[in-house]
């Protein structure tokens, strides 16, 4: 293997390779996948001179540590955290040079959940259906990182623009998700619809890349019986029989059999990716654009 590679010293709780995902194959049961906080992934790519679709690492709560085999430029963004290179403090949210063999340590999230690590040249693991994303639901793409994993890197490119640092949105203290009702809001009682858009839920610790699970009021159905399986979209708020809404994130199944009470605006999903367990969640009904 060439020296354009880096080894994983500490994989962290869950670190995956992500790009912009593999849309267009839902009819075959293939989830879209891709970085949960797309704007953060695009920003760290820009900081190291990568195109926006280059593959990055997505960390979960506990960060990770990496040792490149050649000098590389990296940028860490998304959830704020301590960054060190060879044990010395380094910048977060800015390009950082890591010499060959030195360890880049991406610390646990101080706030938020998902960190993003871009490496100049991108991570060039084998693409599956046009994407290098790890898909935890269907197992496509590279498996989550483990200690000792070696990741191949692409050829380094000079940054497009000299940027020292870039502002990034702070993880939300309260998650406000704009939602358009339907397509199956008529499966719920008027009380349930009121509770859905007026009460406060909390992010459940059972949340993952498939869905943001919530705790809070139980949404009761107006009609029983089973819904025949139907196509699901990113941001769909599905309500299983227990009555707790689940917001479908990037690795969501492409079809499902529980009614969707509403759909969260695409622009609000990156914040959902950064909402830690316990964060209050409010669903605000908005009109369709």
């Amino acid at each position, binding site marked *: 293997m060439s020296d354009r590679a880096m080894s994983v010293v500490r994989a962290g709780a869950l670190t995956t390779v992500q790009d912009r995902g593999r849309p267009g194959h839902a009819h*075959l049961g293939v989830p879209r996948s891709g970085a949960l906080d797309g704007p953060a992934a695009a920003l760290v790519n820009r900081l190291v001179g990568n195109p926006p679709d280059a593959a990055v690492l997505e960390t979960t709560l506990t960060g990770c540590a990496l040792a490149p085999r050649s000098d590389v430029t990296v940028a860490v963004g998304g959830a704020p955290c301590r960054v060190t290179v060879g044990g010395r403090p380094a910048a977060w949210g800015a390009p950082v040079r890591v010499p060959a063999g030195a360890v880049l340590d991406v610390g646990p999230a101080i706030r938020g959940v998902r960190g993003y690590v871009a490496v100049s040249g991108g991570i060039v693991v084998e693409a599956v259906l046009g994407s290098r994303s790890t898909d935890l639901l269907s197992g496509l793409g590279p498996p989550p990182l483990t200690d000792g994993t070696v990741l191949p890197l692409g050829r380094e490119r000079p940054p497009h623009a000299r940027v020292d640092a870039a502002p990034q949105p702070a993880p939300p203290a309260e998650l406000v998700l704009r939602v358009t009702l339907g*397509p199956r809001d008529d499966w719920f009682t008027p009380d349930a619809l009121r509770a859905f858009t007026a009460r406060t839920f909390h992010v459940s610790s059972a949340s993952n890349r498939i869905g943001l699970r919530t705790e809070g009021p139980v949404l009761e159905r107006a009609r029983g019986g089973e819904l*025949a399986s139907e196509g699901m979209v990113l941001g769909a708020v599905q309500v299983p029989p227990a009555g707790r809404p689940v917001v479908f994130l990037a690795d969501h199944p492409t079809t499902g059999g529980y009614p969707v009470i509403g*759909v*969260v605006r695409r622009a609000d999903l990156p914040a959902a990716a950064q909402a830690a367990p316990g964060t209050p969640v409010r669903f605000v009904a908005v009109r369709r654009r």
Partner: protein
Amino acid sequence: MRILPVGDDALLVEVASRAEAEALHAELVRRREAGLLGAREIVPAARTVLLDGLAHPGRVASELAAAHVPPAPPREREVVEIPTRYDGPDLGEVAALWGVPEREVARIHAAAEFRVAFCGFAPGFGYLTGLPARYDVPRRAAPRTAVPAGSVALAGPYTGVYPRASPGGWQLIGTTEAVLWDHTRVPAALLSPGTRVRFVPEDGA
């Protein structure tokens, strides 16, 4: 036909039957291939077709409301044959539900011609219809934590083949060596919506 908006850029089109859903799916794919419909995803399901990634969902909705959907065209594609050993652990239970001897299950199942109504659950997993309604079976009361890859299984009106090992609650009637999903192959999925399928009993089964 009922057209339900889904979020800002998707539509769920609901029809009365599986046959209508299949016809609608075929028509929507035809329109996309002819450049008449810009949709990122066209996802057929049991009674619906989802159109996702529409630039002008309102316009598409009014076009669809006025559209004539011809019955699904006869398939010219050849039949995909899936060599199957009818040796699943639920063969006895299915035979009891059908009220036939065990070896009849293989004969009845292999006599039917199936079509992939839609996919989902896992890449390469197709929901195949083709058995007469009297052979519908319920899911198992307790799902298995691990169903081996290649398991041929029944649930409700559907037959499916597990592309890889996973948990599952379907009734297992057989196994196949056929590769349902291989991302290095073109196409990666052996079965896609509309594919005709036959299960061919292997000798000695």
